C-alpha cells in the first residue's frame, strides 16, 4: 500500500517541473520545428487545401482582389471535362510523352551502357552528355529557337538553303512542333538518366558477368539476359519519373510556341498557365491543376505497386 502511494506522489510532480523536463529534453526540436512547421503549414500545406477550395469557386482576375468571389460547386470541374481545349491538351501531353519518354529512356540507357566502364577519357564524355541536364531550359529553348528558326536566320534553314532547299517552317505545323519540342526534352533529359542508369549498372555485381562469360555468353545475350532484368527496378523508377516530368513540361513551350500553332503544343501545364494567369480564370485553372494532380498521383501509385516486386541481387 505504502509504495503505491509513494509512486502516485512521484507522478504528481508540479506541472511546471514537467514542462521544464520536456523542454530540457526537446528544446532543440521545439526551437527548430515549431517555426518550420508554421512555415510549412502556411506555404506548403494550406495552399494545397486552398487550391482545392478555389477550384469550387468562380475566382478570377476580376474578383479575387475585392474578395467578391463565391462558391459555385462543381461548375469548374464540369467545365474542364466538357472543354475541348482541355481534351486537346491531354492529347498533346500524351503525344509529347509518347515521343519523349521512349527516346530519352533508350538514349540514357545507351549512354550509360557504353560509358559504364572506367577508362581513360570516359569521364569527359559523361560530362558532355550531362551538361544539357543542368542547363536552364530557357537557355536551351533560346538556342533551339535559333537553330530551328523558320526564316533564313535559323541555323538549319541556312544549312538547307546552301543545297538549294527552301526554308522549312519548323514552328508552323503541328506535325513538326511536337517532335522538335520532344527532341529538346530528350537533349535535356538523357544526361541525368545516363547518370542514374550508371548508378544502377554499378550496383550489379561483376560476378554475374564473369560467370556468364565463362558460360560463353555473347555481349547481346549478357545485356538482354543479365543487365536488363537486373536493372528493372532502376528502369521502372526512371520511367515513372520521366513520365511525370513530361506531364509537367511548361517552360520551353512558353518560350518557343506559346502553345501554338492552334493549340497543337498546348500541354496541360501550359493550359493552366494560359487560362489562369493570362485569361484570369483562376478557378478553372485550379480545377485543371487538380486533374493533373490526380493523373500524377495515379502514375506514382502504379510506381509503388510495380516497384513493390523489386529485384534483389542476393
Amino acid at each position: 500500500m505504502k509504495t503505491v502511494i509513494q509512486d502516485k506522489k512521484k507522478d504528481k510532480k508540479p506541472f511546471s517541473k514537467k514542462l521544464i523536463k520536456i523542454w530540457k529534453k526537446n528544446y532543440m526540436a521545439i526551437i527548430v520545428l515549431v517555426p518550420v512547421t508554421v512555415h510549412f503549414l502556411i506555404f506548403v500545406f494550406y495552399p494545397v487545401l486552398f487550391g482545392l477550395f478555389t477550384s469550387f469557386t468562380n475566382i478570377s482576375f476580376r474578383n479575387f482582389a475585392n474578395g467578391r468571389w463565391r462558391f459555385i460547386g462543381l461548375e469548374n470541374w464540369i467545365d474542364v471535362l466538357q472543354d475541348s481545349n482541355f481534351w486537346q491538351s491531354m492529347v498533346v501531353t500524351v503525344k509529347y510523352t509518347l515521343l519523349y519518354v521512349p527516346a530519352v529512356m533508350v538514349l540514357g540507357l545507351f549512354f550509360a551502357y557504353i560509358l559504364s566502364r572506367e577508362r581513360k577519357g570516359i569521364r569527359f564524355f559523361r560530362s558532355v552528355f550531362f551538361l544539357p541536364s543542368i542547363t536552364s531550359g530557357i537557355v536551351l529553348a533560346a538556342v533551339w529557337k535559333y537553330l530551328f528558326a523558320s526564316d533564313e536566320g535559323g541555323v538549319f534553314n541556312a544549312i538547307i538553303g546552301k543545297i538549294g532547299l527552301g526554308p522549312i517552317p519548323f514552328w508552323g505545323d503541328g506535325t513538326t512542333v511536337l517532335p522538335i519540342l520532344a527532341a529538346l526534352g530528350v537533349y535535356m533529359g538523357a544526361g541525368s538518366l545516363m547518370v542514374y542508369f550508371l548508378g544502377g549498372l554499378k550496383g550489379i555485381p561483376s560476378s554475374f558477368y564473369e560467370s556468364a562469360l565463362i558460360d560463353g555468353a555473347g555481349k547481346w545475350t549478357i545485356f538482354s539476359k543479365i543487365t536488363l532484368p537486373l536493372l528493372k527496378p532502376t528502369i521502372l523508377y526512371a520511367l515513372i519519373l520521366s513520365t511525370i516530368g513530361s506531364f509537367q513540361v511548361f517552360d520551353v513551350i512558353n518560350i518557343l510556341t506559346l502553345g501554338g500553332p492552334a493549340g497543337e503544343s498546348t500541354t496541360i501545364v501550359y493550359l493552366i498557365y494560359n487560362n489562369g494567369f493570362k485569361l484570369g480564370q483562376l478557378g478553372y485553372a485550379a480545377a485543371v491543376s487538380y486533374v493533373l494532380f490526380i493523373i500524377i498521383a495515379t502514375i506514382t501509385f502504379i510506381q509503388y505497386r510495380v516497384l513493390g516486386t523489386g529485384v534483389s541481387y542476393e
Partner: protein
Amino acid sequence: MNTKMSKFGEIIYWSGLIIFALLFIFPFIMMITGSFSDTRTIVPRKNFWIPEYIYYGNYKNFFSNDKALSWVKNSFIYAIVPVITGTFINTLVGYILAKKNFKGRNFLFLLYISMMLVPSQVSLVPNYVMYTTVFKFTDSYLAILVPGMWSISNMFLMRQYATTLPDSIIEAALIDGSGDFYTFFKIIFPMVKTPVAVMGIFAFLAYWNIYLPVLIYMNDPGMYNLTVGVGTMVQLDGNYGMQMLGAVICMVPVFILYVFCQRYFVEGISLTGLKG
C-alpha cells in the same frame, strides 16, 4: 563488361562517342558564336557556324543596359539566399527528424514528405491569390525567398543521410556536457559536408533556373531574373545575337559551378533521383 574489344571495335566505339559528343556540344557552340554575331549578318547568313567577324556589340549593349544588369543581380539574389537559409534549416530539420526522439516525430515527417507527392502546379493559383492579396509579395523578392527558405526534398535528403550517422558520437558529445546546438554545429555539421554540398548545388541550380514563379509574381521587368528576362527577349524579338548572348550570360555561372563541383552533381543524382 570486362570483354576486350577488337581494334576495329575500338575505332567504331570512339568515333561513335565523338560524333554523339559533337552533336551534344553543337547547340552550345552555336550559342557562343551567335552571341558574337552581328544580327545584320545573321539574316541572311552566308556562313552558319562562325560569324563573319567577331562582333562585341551585343556584349556592349547588354552590359550598358541597367535592366539587364538588374536581371543578373536578381538571379544571384534569388539563387543565393535560398542556398544559405536552406543549408541551415534543411540540415537542422533533417538531423532532428533522424536522431531526436520525441512524440509525433514520425507523424511530422510523414506530413512533410507527403507533400512531395503533390505537383507544384497545384499551388500556383492558391499561392497567387495569397501572395497578391494577403502577403503583398508582388514585385518583391519575398515572393521567391520566403517560400524558398527551406525545401522538403532537400530536408528529406539530409534526413536519410543523417540516419546513417553513428549514435555513439552524438551521445558522447552530449555526455561531455555540450548542448544540442553546440553538438550540431561543432560535430554533426562537419560530418555531413557531402550532402550539404549536394544540397547547396541543387538548390542553387533550381533557384538560378527558376522561371514560372518569377513570371507570375513579378510585373516589373526590373524584378525579373535572367531566365525570365532572356525568355521574354526570346518571345518578343528576332534579334538572335542578343538572345544567344542572354543565354550565354545565364549559362556561365552554372557552367563554372559544373566544372569545379562535378563530383557533387553526379552524387546528387544518385542520392535524390532525377530532376522533375
